[in-house]
């Protein structure tokens, strides 16, 4: 089956991102396909490479990046939500005159159309939020 995943909460404060990650791993382990993982609302905060949790805690951001690399996942961060919350790639830095970027490897910033397309293309769109 072809899945799409929507992550609506940021890391650490809410369980949603952890559960979405565990779900993604389980989906792939069962041999299913993930069309796209889309990050919206505070979910965009899963994509900052500046996250530094204590050493004995899980690194939620790096964990997503690694999963994306291993499985060639398409992980998309909503541009409007990212702009509000200061998630920046090279393009956004130039466009908005910022002095830094913080987008973690494996993520890309794009529009909400990518979420709707995921809903159209996938057999199931599974939402993780509060």
């Amino acid at each position, binding site marked *: 089956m072809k899945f799409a995943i929507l992550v609506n909460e940021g890391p650490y404060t809410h369980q949603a991102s952890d559960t979405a990650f565990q779900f993604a791993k389980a989906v792939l382990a069962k041999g299913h396909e993930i069309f796209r993982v889309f990050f919206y609302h505070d979910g965009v905060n899963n994509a900052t490479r500046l996250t530094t949790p204590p050493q004995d805690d899980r690194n939620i951001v790096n964990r997503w990046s690694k999963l994306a690399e291993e499985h060639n996942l398409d992980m998309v961060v909503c541009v409007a939500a990212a702009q509000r919350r200061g998630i920046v790639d090279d393009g956004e830095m130039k466009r908005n005159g910022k002095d830094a970027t913080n987008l973690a490897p494996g993520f890309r910033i794009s529009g909400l159309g990518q979420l709707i397309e995921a*809903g159209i293309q996938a057999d199931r*769109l599974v939402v993780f939020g509060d």
Partner: protein
Amino acid sequence: MTTKQFMFVNRKAPYGTIYAWEALEVVLIAAAFEQDVSLAFLDDGVYQLKKGHQTKGIEVKAFEKTWGALEDYDVTKLYVDQESLAERGLTADDLAVPVEVLSRAEIGKLMEAQDVVLSF
């Protein structure tokens, strides 16, 4: 383009969190993609439709007027949970736009018929 039935389930109060506002942004994109869009309002989500938003004091943009504009995007299916309204002492007359008031069970059936359900 493939058309699917997208239902947006709004459960949260209009202000206090950004969910309602950002959900509305997705609704407009889904409509722009010419999908079969409907909205359901449950729990505190029914407050999103209440007339007379005054947000000046909290310095947040009010989005009440957007409900009236949804028709221009061919989004006309707005379902409101009767029980949620009643629990909050509201009726359809308190709402900013015409809606279809349905029982919780009826909304449940509609959800079952959707291809995609996005809950905010």
